[in-house]
């Protein structure tokens, strides 16, 4: 009996998976299809100045730890990065209005912007001057969970150490 039930359950799970993949649905999926749009296309990234994570003072392209990470991520999904420099508040507004896909700027998981952006899971921890730990995250467009989790997985896979 037990093995029969296990078989049915396995069969049921397989059917559900088949149905989901058959419909082209992966979990989690993007309501607006952000990952599909940026893959092989343009990744619109807001950037606010916060060295050493982000630096936009130079005359050429932005630099910094997070800039390198974003460039690598873009490479992994075959996208071109379009940088939009700005202050945090202005960038957050643009993110909310779907003019950006994500923002970097040395954010930590205690960032107050949780009503404007989805914060990724922390990808690196640093010790602050006062000895407290800061868990670093990036901000992505709200609710585009496939895009966000793909970025999160990429960041975690980099195993960033400082």
């Amino acid at each position, binding site marked *: 009996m037990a093995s029969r039930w296990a078989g049915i359950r396995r069969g049921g799970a397989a059917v559900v998976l088949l149905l*989901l993949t058959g419909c082209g*649905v992966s*979990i*989690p*999926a*993007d*309501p607006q299809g952000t990952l599909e749009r940026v893959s092989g296309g343009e990744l619109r990234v807001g950037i606010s100045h916060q060295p050493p994570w982000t630096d936009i003072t130079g005359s050429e392209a932005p630099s910094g730890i997070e800039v390198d990470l974003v460039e690598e991520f873009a490479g992994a999904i075959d996208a071109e990065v379009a940088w939009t420099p700005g202050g945090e508040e202005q960038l957050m507004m643009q993110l909310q209005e779907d003019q950006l896909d994500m923002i970097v700027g040395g954010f930590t*998981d205690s960032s107050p912007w*949780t*009503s404007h952006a*989805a*914060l*990724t*899971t922390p990808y690196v921890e640093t010790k602050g001057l006062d000895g407290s730990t800061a868990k670093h995250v990036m901000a*992505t467009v*709200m*609710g*585009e*969970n*496939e895009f*966000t*989790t793909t970025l*999160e*997985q990429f960041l*975690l896979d980099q195993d960033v150490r400082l």
Partner: protein
Amino acid sequence: MNGSSRAGAERYRFGHTELPEKPAKALRRAIRLEWIDLVIRVVTVVAMILVAGNSQAMKAAWIEDALSFLPPIAFLIAVRIARRRPTEAHPYGFHRSVGVAHLVAATTLLGMGGYLLIDSALGLLTAEHPPIGLIEIFGTTVWLGWLMIPTVLLTAIPPMILGRMKLKLAPVLHNKVLYADADMNKADWMTALTTAVGVFGIGIGLWWADSAAAILISFSIISDGWKNLRSAVADLMDRRATTFDAKEPHPLIDEVDELLTGIDWVEDAECRIRDEGHVFHIEAFVVPRNGRMPTLDQLAEAREACVDLDWKVQDMVIVPVEKLPEEFLPQLRSA
């Protein structure tokens, strides 16, 4: 030892009323259930905080969790206070504590349903797209949704069981707080199920799934809360006694009338009964046959017979009258 046995005996009474075995047992079980309920709620809230972490989606659930502590606490306080014997300052006893607790539980239920409706409707109107990302546990990464779904489903099980058990005890104890609290348990497990559905919906890219599901069940919670609130307020305003679910007039009303009318010296009888909490307050008017005043023994016997009907009958007065007074017995007018 003496102290503990007295405390035990105290448990089986509401004011003057000694509880027979069945309701006494139901009361003990109900008190135990509510304590278990509180412990499970604490565990649930802690589990939610651990799983939900920073996620906005589940932050709202904490407010509901905090609210749902109120009905069990109200029940436990109410039955404690109701046990007190009447005093000079409180000649009717402390049974109304149950009515107050019912009001608290009903308001909580209504508040929870209203909060859920407004919060979810705002989420839909502002097109809030809930983010659910990855989480690292034990060195592996999983989508937080896969953790949330089994967790909320797990939290649905205890209120489902507890609610059913409370529903069985509520009529035995004639306790409307317990009944309202069973509705709260129903609201809990329905919310949990819809959260699971909503999170899965978000998983397959339907950002509105969570809010839409929550709106659907908020109507059912609001309706339960409203029904209980009306019933609690009506009871506190001395409405005629009803069954524990407030669906119909309590059968004891007819039973007392019939018993009194059946006594040989009684020509006609009618009573008014209000629900004090667990027990009833009864004023019965009897018209003696041929206008002959009954003896004190006959009156006492009649009262005893009524008290023997049900443990809820205790606080009762019988008034011999020449004619049934319509101003105190409005039912005569409608009949």
